[in-house]
């Protein structure tokens, strides 16, 4: 098992649950990052291409 996979699938169920919690928590930041990409595209459109 790779180091990354091992971190995602710890043997201890409590640790595994914590890892799953953290993964769900990170989705908020990923959503904000995706929103930032959209904002940058909109800004580029209005500043440079219209």
């Amino acid at each position, binding site marked *: 098992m790779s180091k990354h996979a091992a971190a995602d699938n710890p043997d201890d*169920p409590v640790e595994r*649950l914590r890892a*799953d919690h953290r993964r769900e928590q990170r989705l908020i930041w990923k959503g904000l990052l995706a929103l930032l990409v959209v904002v940058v595209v909109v800004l580029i459109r209005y500043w440079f291409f219209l």
Partner: protein
Amino acid sequence: MHTVGGIGLWALSLFVLLGALPNVVAVLQVVFAALHRYRDHYDKVETDPSRLPRVAVLVPAWNEAAVLRFSVDAMMELDYPPDRLRLVVVDDASTDETPQLMAEKSAQYPGRVLHLRREHGGQGKAHTLNHGLRVLLADDWAQAVLITDADVVFESTAVQRMTRHLADPEVGAVTAFITEASGSPNSINRYVGYEYVAAQGVGRRAQNFVRAQGCLAGGAQLHTRENLIDLGGEIDTTTLAEDTVTTILTQLAGRAVIFDGNAVCLAEEPGSVVALWKQRLRWSRGNLQVARRFHKVFFRPGRGHRLGRPWFGLMWWSTLLLPAFMILASGALVILWLAGENRARLLFDILWITSALGFIFTTTFTLLMDRSVARRCWREALAFPGLISLTVMAWVLVPRPMHELVRGVCRAVGLGWNPHVWRYLALAAYLWVSVCMIAAWLVYRLDKAGKLRRLNGLLVFLTGYGPLLCAITFAAYVAQARGAATTWDKTEKTGKIVRPV
């Protein structure tokens, strides 16, 4: 040139804007998925392995020896207490070496692998499953039943991750994330791989958030014994979407259905346009049958479930009605164009800017959500709408450079340049909103006829995988309207899954 009257103008405008609705819903799904942490089910799970339920894994099989050869071993090696996990393979009168293989596996894993043989099969997956359920529910060993497919391989901790949710007595069923894991995947496999992250990883988290699940993945549905007994001890055999019917009935009975995106299963999915068309036509027809059967559930709040809430209805219908929205939007744009209305261009811009920004937002989030799939399928993610639609998106996002580019291309190919060329290009773009489905259907017909197979990847890249899915949904409308026979077409599996290391 005819003019369009006031009410007609508003109706046509509404039709165009309706075309943007599925994109708006897709964006909302991403927002809900991002906020999933605040409504996930992890604060009610069981983490003590000694208290995990006894699980019977039920596998329907018809000529599946090629995949059972390794999936049985994979199931026996799962990180789950061995005395609490049994595998029951219901052999639907297979004519390959399934019986011999299962005899071997039963001897290799005594008491843990059981082989049930139906001598007269061919009625379909649901009947095969019901045969197994009758046997399983006849004694009280199984506290939960995990229904899966012969080719599905669970990651070692996946079943534990699923069963931990059953500690909550309100939960009736749990599903997992199925990822496309073909060994040397082709472009269709990779499109499916990306689509699964978008549809399951994002879509089902969003459905967790609104506490109404549309469908338990057919290859990973874990039920409590009580739930199955409440369902009458058997699953639906009247539609092509028995897993969706089970999901809805479970929730109508007041039980929760949970998606655990961290419980991962690997499956082999179709690798050609024809195989994909066959599989998805069955799914789409099944969804239409389900929509008809449960039409009174949508948009009508009910006691003990949230299927009647607006968000769930919007998510469900925006997918099912997407082809109709596209045809309406395209037709309305063309009528407005013929009537010489400047409004056509404005509405077109609104429709496609919504699509473009929605596409950027959902694709970025989906790729960030699953980095292993992103590494494998990023090209297909970017090409999902097809090159032609991407060009239209670029046209509305950065009109001036695109105008210069198109003018240069027209001059280079000898078409010359005048305002009429621009006008007719606009008409072509309006038509493409619905014509893309015809183009996708032609790609399918070419694949079915065995012609230009080498160019299939390129043709799908041009027309788009999204339009191909829409064309399949439209074909499902036609099949249902014609009353085509409801037959179960098995998707061919070859056992080319790459197992996790």
